[in-house]
């Protein structure tokens, strides 16, 4: 009462006026007398600003983790080193306006793109993985560039005279351009920068490669050199199309589905390109033939474009084709929208698909782009999108927390209820058991159990194990609380009444007494939920909880345990920390608010 009076002046005039309108000017004190304790608790809880802010914050995070994964699905096993440690931000597709209407050539690199306009000016945009990429050679040095290509972290370009230039990463021999290409004179037909390798093809069908030979092991079959029409490269392989329309893998290794170019199209191929796991070739009748592994449906060519395809270009897990009516079509992986080709106004002249993006230059020199524009929260060391992992991790962390709390609450109610109602020896025994469990040091024991039991089981079983461990070890608190409340309720009249009616003991405890103390249990369960989430995160953080590739907020921080990461890749630890912190803070605020609302005495504090 005293407290209510104290609060009254703090209410704003607006709410007072509103109340008067509803209550018809009824004096406030009278209204309070009419309220049941439950409603009073609810009222005071709703007026607790901190608790409300906590609820708001938690509900938002919760909804995000539940709903957003439907829009941003995650492939837990996906990883891509070319996308490792990309800083958060967008703009990978932001073609400089100076290039619009004047574009000569565009190429997609790992997380950046390089473009060339018709005057020979070079543009770079996106997230540069390497600072050396900024050292674009001046036009005096290079002359008029006509061809450009971006790779993992380097760029190659050629001028009108066939002189080849490179900048960006200069290790692994990427700077050692073959002599023949340095001096010019050879007309360059095709130029590509790949994964630590550069490739060039001259008009007379001669191919050159330099850079790291370790990954690709390029070898030219007899009679291919000097007869090459076009080549294509991915991180795994290089293949060449000869002037006779045949495709040759430039490798000595055989046996993988990747090198098995269908025999029936050999000799009839007009264009082809490779994605990371598959190849696609266009034959003279305008049909696309694919081979390799059907990762992300790269082999599933849309039926309606068959017979109309002019040329094809491959990204990491998708293909984009130009059709005979000048429109474009894409298929394959659509995680970043790279397979959602837009409708073009004018006919497409050239398409460059690479990594996760596509650029299409139309006949007027305008550029249209689609695909990966950037990562909202950056990527981790394995190139995984942190935003998606954060959502999946939130779901996992909350699920583990919630189920652990359910387990511990059920055990707590059972033990506490029986112990408090029965009393005597049973009480003594159960309380000793409670004491034993609570004297087990929590975190070390969790670590030990999860490392010993979780050794030879599957990932799902491991997650269940973590839930059970947390639940089974954290019930003593709730059991004590329930026991105390049951002791107080036991002597009430309604229990005596239930007894005299012949209700069984089990029924009295769980159907008559427990519903009366459910508020206390709910408050405690709320606070336990935060604790369980924290414990799970701590366990996963030190590597004894939910293991990769499953994401939780704790194990996302696991990789951020060294100074290098903390200093250079802030996004890898800031985002998970902020969300986890916000979540636990808001749950604690809610729990505190609930407690204050239920226990009027504590509000005095």
């Amino acid at each position, binding site marked *: 009462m005293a407290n209510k009076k104290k609060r009254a002046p703090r209410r704003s005039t607006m709410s007072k006026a509103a109340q008067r309108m509803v209550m018809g000017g009824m004096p406030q004190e009278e209204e309070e007398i009419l309220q049941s304790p439950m409603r009073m608790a609810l009222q005071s809880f709703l007026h607790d600003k901190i608790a409300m802010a906590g609820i708001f914050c938690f509900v938002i995070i919760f909804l995000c983790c539940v709903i957003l994964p439907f829009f941003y699905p995650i492939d837990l096993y996906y990883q891509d080193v070319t996308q490792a440690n990309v800083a958060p931000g967008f703009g990978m597709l932001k073609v400089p306006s100076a290039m619009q209407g004047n574009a000569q050539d565009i190429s997609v690199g790992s997380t950046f793109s390089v473009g060339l306009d018709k005057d020979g000016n070079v543009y770079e945009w996106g997230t540069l993985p390497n600072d050396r990429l900024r050292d674009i050679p001046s036009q005096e040095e290079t002359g008029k560039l006509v061809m450009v290509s971006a790779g993992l972290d380097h760029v190659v370009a050629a001028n009108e005279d066939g002189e080849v230039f490179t900048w960006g990463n200069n290790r692994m021999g990427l700077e050692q351009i073959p002599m023949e290409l340095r001096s010019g004179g050879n007309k360059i037909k095709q130029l590509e920068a790949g994964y630590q390798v550069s490739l060039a093809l001259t008009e007379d069908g001669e191919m050159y490669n330099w850079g790291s030979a370790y990954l690709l092991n390029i070898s030219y079959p007899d009679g291919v050199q000097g007869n090459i029409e076009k080549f294509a490269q991915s991180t795994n392989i290089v293949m060449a199309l000869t002037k006779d329309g045949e495709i040759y893998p430039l490798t000595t290794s055989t046996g993988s589905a990747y090198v098995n170019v269908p025999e029936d199209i050999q000799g009839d191929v007009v264009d082809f390109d490779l994605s990371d796991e598959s190849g696609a070739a266009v034959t003279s009748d305008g049909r696309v033939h694919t081979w390799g592994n059907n990762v992300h449906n790269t082999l599933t060519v849309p039926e309606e474009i068959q017979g109309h395809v002019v040329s094809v270009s491959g990204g990491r897990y998708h293909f984009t084709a130009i059709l005979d009516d000048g429109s474009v079509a894409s298929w394959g992986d659509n995680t970043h929208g790279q397979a959602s080709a837009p409708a073009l106004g004018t006919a497409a002249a050239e398409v460059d698909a690479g990594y996760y993006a596509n650029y299409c230059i139309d006949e007027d020199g305008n550029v249209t782009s689609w695909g990966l524009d950037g990562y909202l929260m950056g990527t981790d060391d394995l190139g995984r999108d942190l935003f998606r992992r954060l959502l999946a991790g939130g779901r996992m962390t909350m699920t583990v927390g919630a189920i652990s709390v359910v387990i511990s609450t059920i055990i707590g109610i059972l033990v506490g209820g029986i112990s408090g109602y029965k009393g005597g020896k049973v009480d003594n025994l159960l309380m000793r058991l409670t004491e034993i469990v609570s004297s087990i040091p929590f975190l070390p*024991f969790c*670590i030990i159990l999860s490392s010993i039991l979780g050794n030879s089981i599957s990932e799902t079983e491991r997650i269940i194990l973590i839930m059970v461990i947390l639940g089974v070890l954290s019930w003593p608190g709730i059991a004590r609380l329930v026991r105390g409340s049951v002791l107080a309720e036991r002597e009430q009249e309604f229990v005596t009444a239930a007894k005299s009616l012949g209700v069984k003991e089990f029924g009295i405890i769980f159907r008559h007494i427990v519903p009366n103390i459910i508020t206390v249990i709910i408050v405690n369960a709320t606070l336990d939920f935060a604790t369980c989430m924290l414990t799970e995160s701590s366990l996963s953080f030190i590597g004894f909880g939910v293991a990769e590739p499953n994401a939780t907020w704790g194990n996302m921080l696991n990789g951020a345990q060294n100074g290098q990461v903390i200093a250079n890749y802030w996004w890898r630890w800031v985002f998970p920390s902020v969300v986890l912190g916000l979540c636990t803070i808001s749950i604690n605020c809610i729990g505190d608010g609930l407690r204050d609302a239920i226990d009027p005495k504590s509000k*005095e504090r």
Partner: protein
Amino acid sequence: MGKGRYLLKRLLYIVFVFFIISILMFFIYKSMPGDPVDAMLGSLKTTMRPDAYQDLYNRTAERLGVNEPLPVQYIKWIASMLTGNFGYSTQYQRQVIDVIGAPMLNTILLNVFTMVVVFVISIPLGIVTAVRKNGVFDKTVQVVTIIGYSLPSFIIALLAIFAFAVKIPLFPISGVRSAGADAGGLQGMLDMVWHMTLPVLVMSVSGIGGITRYVRASMIDVLRMDYIKTARAKGLREKTVIYVHAFRNALIPIVTITTWWIIGLFGGSVVIESVFLWNGLGKMLIDGLMNRDFSIVLTMQMFYVLLSLAGNVLMDIAYTIVDPRVRLEN
């Protein structure tokens, strides 16, 4: 019932719980997949001749006693445990007792420092906020403390490393002492304190958050009591009222919570030790688990159990000290 008899009863009970947990732990360990003998001999299996290896294997198994029935193994193990022989560490190739000294000292140092920092800050803070209840200062502290105890320690650790070791390189990121620093005496001490600052800071934050809130809550309860009014009516100075009359009575619930906190502190320092590569018991536990070094892990676990059981008894004793009304009975 006298105090002595009560304590004796408690002690017996602790011994009982200790044995229960030790049995539990022992059998969990024994159900662990993997052959400890193979783990101990390590790479010898590939380098030795098969028959010689088998011979060595049998001898080692004999020495470790892994072929005997489990209850016998347990009794042998617990007997040697109680006589101070904690077994042989397969990871360090030495007796556990020989390798456990330094980490234990490190952990105790870390925790004791944290406790001192937490109490020195949180008790006065709790009292002040309780006295000036609902003031601006109180409200601020309330918000800060709820953040402090809600944030997981490893997030605070990451923030602290970012702020004080990366951005402003005041303190080392990890380790117990500087590499190669061999200096004993004052220099060595200072070096260690320098390395300890960040872990202690991080562990203190959550402790301060929780304890301050408890001190405040229990002080507020006490300050509303009639005897405080009486004390004031007698004309005692406000300081005497608060620090002598009120605080002593507020201590009872504080003692409960701090005992649990201290026990949790030792367990929780596992995470901090692994972040800061602090060579303490927690890190040893994790290393032991990684290397399947049963003896080390079992010893660690028993240490933690003993610690928490002892904490319970100390709590009881502390009750009688702070509140003469409490009789140590059932």
